[in-house]
């Protein structure tokens, strides 16, 4: 079945397509009434209401994990780390550390035997037999205060036998390469991963469509080249942290800075199953988090907090990462070497694409392999290509674990692809924007794995972005030492999720008619709490200011898989919408049965139930949503109104032919867009100044336009930073050299473009709440390639490796003479 049909059915089945106050006529559940007039304009959807968490954040009331008080029984843990990128652990001697006054316990790999991992269980809580990256946790000291833990950690003696480190993903493929995971063949993994036992290949996603040989024969121009992208760090300003408490009765509570409370609960329960802990005994509480960007998804260091707690029953134990640890022992964005071959006809039509990507996935790929997988399914970019061959290869290396980072691989392959397109357009003397127009994907097109493209406004995005950046018009710098250039590129991205990733929501009315909405989607700054309030507000006619939506607690809040992939506005938003509709239906039921009003005449407005046929009727929520409605005999009917909503995309499937990826429906939808930039470069210093950046994105429906625009300004700057400034540097022995904000710097308030213009395009997503689809990650994706193209436009030099720093430009210019 096609995506769109299912989207419609899904909507029809539960009323999710309805707006507040519209009668239910026409949805197949009631009859007799004429079709209603067109729905009224939205009251709260599409409005830039203030963030519901805004005041908490400007007053300092917002609490983050490190801010929670645990009292004097709190213990502190400090981790003993591997100094080697690759070594066998011969012996761990904890005796000296244990003697230090104030030390409660020293924990090592001996204490925990289970492996963990999101998509592939390939790592231990503490390294047991072998360390595979510099900084990997080998042991931990738990003490009464952080300083004692740190001092004692220095006394833990670990004897290693060094192994040769594998640092290059391409060399790691060599048959003679040292193996990182000789037991790879035994690791449990999701059925859509294809690890190659006896090699360093953890996963190989192959996608085949049409006939690439034929496609290349049809081409008038073929260009083949390699693009490289280094590793990057998320740099959320809050570091990772976790506090675990395994209480005397055997219940485990873990407070974490996380995007993924339920995924963590599941991970902790599985890894600690030998202790007899079941899911119901595990509770994960996630207060506000200070930025995520993918880095706080899944389970990384938090498992240390959970595991350590079980060794000091009755005491909460805290593990906070330092900024350095944040850099080298969470997830890093993976590096990639991308070999791209594109065939194009004279008129600019792409005839074939061959994309081979070797990912430097790091020591453990339990999450990162899914980045590789996602790219393997989408590395055509948002273009219609009939003949496709993609190989996306996940390679173990002795560098920190790779993992999710805003953009999930799409920025990385986009750098090469969008650069390549400009180069081919130039050779064919076609305007690069025309080239993109010609090949841009459209709703209904067949994707490279056989499913169909969702409705999308890519054409509109290209037009608007090109117009806003003044495409085709050259402007002149005032300073003769400077040169100007422009670049326009396209982007797309789908959420990468298991096919059964789901969302749910509860909604509770309070005595005064205000609402609490319980979700487990995480607000990491993007504004989910606010937009969920807006969605409930729209359905129930309660102003967002009267709705409290809080961060998750797995005991109290219903299930959400994770807040990743820019999918929670869509998934969690749908669940909230359904919960609100569920509450509304309960209200209608109650009013119908107690006041004898015809159900189909009822609607909600201004926090009241109203009736179309009785204009004078208006029953305020506060008068009945808890207390019920008093009947003539003075009995009360009803009771607390509580809505419940679930959402799962029931049309997706990850299972397909391993050799071609044909046959499944792995992605729910793509968000598409186009972006442009104008830069000015100092030819002597190589410094790039971004004069203007524009990003047009089809987000289906902007539930809160201001928050959507914030995603554009923030995401674009994060993307620009990856191309203009940042990259991770490693020593020849695999040690990260810039694990701090002095040398892995992120842009300051003085390093931003002169102007950023967000353009929001709304081609509705049929199964999205009010037509919305995700926008968070997409804003970062086009940045690198558009800078690369603008640099070429300005200077005539093509840089094929990221980042494109002032240094790289100046030296390239010097070399070119």
């Amino acid at each position, binding site marked *: 079945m096609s995506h769109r049909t299912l989207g419609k059915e899904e909507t029809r089945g539960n009323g999710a397509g309805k707006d507040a106050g519209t009668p239910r006529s026409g949805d197949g559940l009631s009859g007799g009434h004429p079709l209603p007039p067109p729905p009224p304009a939205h009251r709260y959807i599409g409005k*830039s209401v*203030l*963030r519901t*968490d*805004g*005041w*908490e*954040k*400007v*007053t*300092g*009331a*917002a*609490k*983050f994990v*490190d*801010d929670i*008080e645990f009292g004097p029984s709190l213990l502190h843990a400090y981790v003993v780390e591997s100094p080697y990128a690759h070594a066998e652990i011969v012996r761990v001697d904890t005796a000296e550390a244990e003697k230090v006054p104030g030390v409660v316990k020293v924990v090592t790999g001996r204490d925990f035997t289970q492996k963990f991992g999101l998509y592939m269980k390939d790592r231990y809580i503490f390294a047991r037999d072998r360390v595979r990256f510099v900084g990997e946790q080998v042991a931990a000291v738990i003490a009464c205060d952080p*300083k004692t833990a740190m001092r004692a950690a220095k006394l833990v003696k670990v004897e290693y036998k060094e192994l040769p480190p594998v640092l290059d993903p391409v060399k790691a493929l060599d048959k003679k390469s040292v193996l990182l995971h000789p037991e790879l063949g035994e690791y449990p993994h999701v059925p859509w991963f294809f690890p190659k036992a006896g090699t360093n290949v953890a996963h190989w996603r192959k996608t085949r469509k049409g006939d690439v040989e034929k496609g290349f024969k049809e081409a008038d121009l073929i260009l083949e080249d390699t693009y490289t992208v280094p590793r990057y760090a*998320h*740099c*959320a*300003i*809050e*570091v990772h942290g976790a506090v675990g408490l395994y209480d005397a009765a055997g219940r485990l509570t873990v407070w974490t800075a996380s995007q993924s409370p339920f995924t963590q609960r599941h991970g902790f329960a599985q890894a600690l199953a030998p202790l007899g802990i079941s899911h119901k005994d595990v509770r994960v509480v996630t207060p*506000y*988090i*200070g*930025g*995520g*960007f993918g880095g706080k998804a899944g389970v990384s260091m938090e498992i240390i907090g959970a595991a350590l707690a079980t060794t000091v029953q009755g005491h909460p134990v805290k593990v*906070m990462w*330092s*900024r*350095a640890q944040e850099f080298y022992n969470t997830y890093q964005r993976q590096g990639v070497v991308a070999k791209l071959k594109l065939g194009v006809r004279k008129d600019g039509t792409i005839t074939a694409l061959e994309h081979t990507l070797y990912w430097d996935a790091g020591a453990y790929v339990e999450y990162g392999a899914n980045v590789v997988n996602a790219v393997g399914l989408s590395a055509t970019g948002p273009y219609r290509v009939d003949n496709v061959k993609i190989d996306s290869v996940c390679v173990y290396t002795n560098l920190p674990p790779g993992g999710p980072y805003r953009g999930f691989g799409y920025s990385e392959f986009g750098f090469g692809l969008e650069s390549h397109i400009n180069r081919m357009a130039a050779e064919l003397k076609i305007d690069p924007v025309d080239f993109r127009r010609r090949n841009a994907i459209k709703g209904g097109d067949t994707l490279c794995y056989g499913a169909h493209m969702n409705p999308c406004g890519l054409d509109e995005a290209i037009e608007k972005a090109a117009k806003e950046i003044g495409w085709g018009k050259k402007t002149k710098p005032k300073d003769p030492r400077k040169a100007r250039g422009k670049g326009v590129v396209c982007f797309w991205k789908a959420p990468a999720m298991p096919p059964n990733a789901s969302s749910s929501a509860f909604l509770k009315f309070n005595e005064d008619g205000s609402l609490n909405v319980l979700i487990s989607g995480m607000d*990491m*700054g*993007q*504004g989910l709490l606010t937009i969920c309030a807006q969605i409930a507000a729209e359905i129930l006619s309660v102003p967002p200011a009267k709705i409290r939506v809080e961060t998750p607690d797995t005991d109290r809040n219903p299930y959400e898989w994770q807040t990743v992939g820019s999918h929670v506005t869509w998934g969690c938003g749908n669940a909230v919408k359904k919960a609100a509709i569920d509450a509304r239906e309960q209200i209608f039921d109650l009013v119908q049965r107690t006041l004898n009003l015809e159900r189909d005449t009822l609607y909600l407005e201004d926090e009241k139930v109203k009736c179309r046929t009785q204009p004078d009727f208006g029953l305020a929520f506060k008068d009945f949503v808890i207390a019920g409605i008093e009947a003539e005999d003075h009995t009360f009917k009803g009771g607390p109104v509580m809505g419940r909503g679930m959402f799962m995309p029931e049309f997706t499937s990850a299972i397909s032919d391993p050799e071609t990826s044909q046959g499944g429906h792995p992605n729910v939808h793509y968000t598409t867009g186009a972006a442009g930039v104008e830069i000015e470069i100092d030819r002597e210093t190589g410094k790039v100044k971004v004069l203007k950046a524009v990003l047009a994105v089809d987000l289906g429906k902007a539930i809160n336009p*201001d*928050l959507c625009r*914030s995603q554009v*300004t*923030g*995401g*674009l*700057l*994060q993307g620009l930073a990856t191309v203009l400034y940042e990259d991770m540097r490693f020593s020849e022995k695999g040690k990260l050299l810039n694990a*701090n*904000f*002095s040398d892995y710097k*992120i842009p*300051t*308030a*003085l390093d*931003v473009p002169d102007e*950023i213009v967000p353009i929001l395009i709304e081609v509705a997503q049929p199964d999205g709440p009010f037509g919305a689809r995700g926008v968070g990650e997409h804003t970062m994706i086009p940045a690198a390639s558009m800078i690369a193209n603008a640099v070429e436009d300005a200077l005539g030099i093509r840089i094929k490796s990221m980042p494109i720093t002032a240094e790289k430009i100046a030296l390239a210019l010097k070399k070119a003479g």
Partner: protein
Amino acid sequence: MKKHTISLKVNGVARTLEVEPSDLLNEVLRDKVGTKSVKVGCDRGDCGTCTVLLNGRAVRSCLVLAAEADGSDILTLEGISKEGGAALQKALHKRNSFQCGFCAPGMILSAHELLRKNPHPTDADIREAIAGNLCRCTGYTPIVEGIADAAKGGK
């Protein structure tokens, strides 16, 4: 090691505290005074989330020993919030200036210091004043606009 008894005035309240020589001001403010708006982001003075006003000057409290601050007057975000929210906070709230909000306390204190010294800052002055406060979410523009609004009297 000899402990030090120090006197601090934090947000207008005088306190006497016993600290170790190696205790950092941010640790003492967070753990002994309870002003949790003082964040820890980088451990080495790069990120600005631990910014407090020490005798009226914005400093990195992670780079100050608590014992060094003996006799000082300290203002944290809690102190600014006390009076029902300064105009600056209101202006930032109205602009949806922050996303995750982790940088907010330090950012607001840097801006507070700026506006006290220079009530009519230019865009460049504002950017310079907060250049030591890192934010990864917003691209800074909504924060700069919020501070500018506050300077214009919230208009």
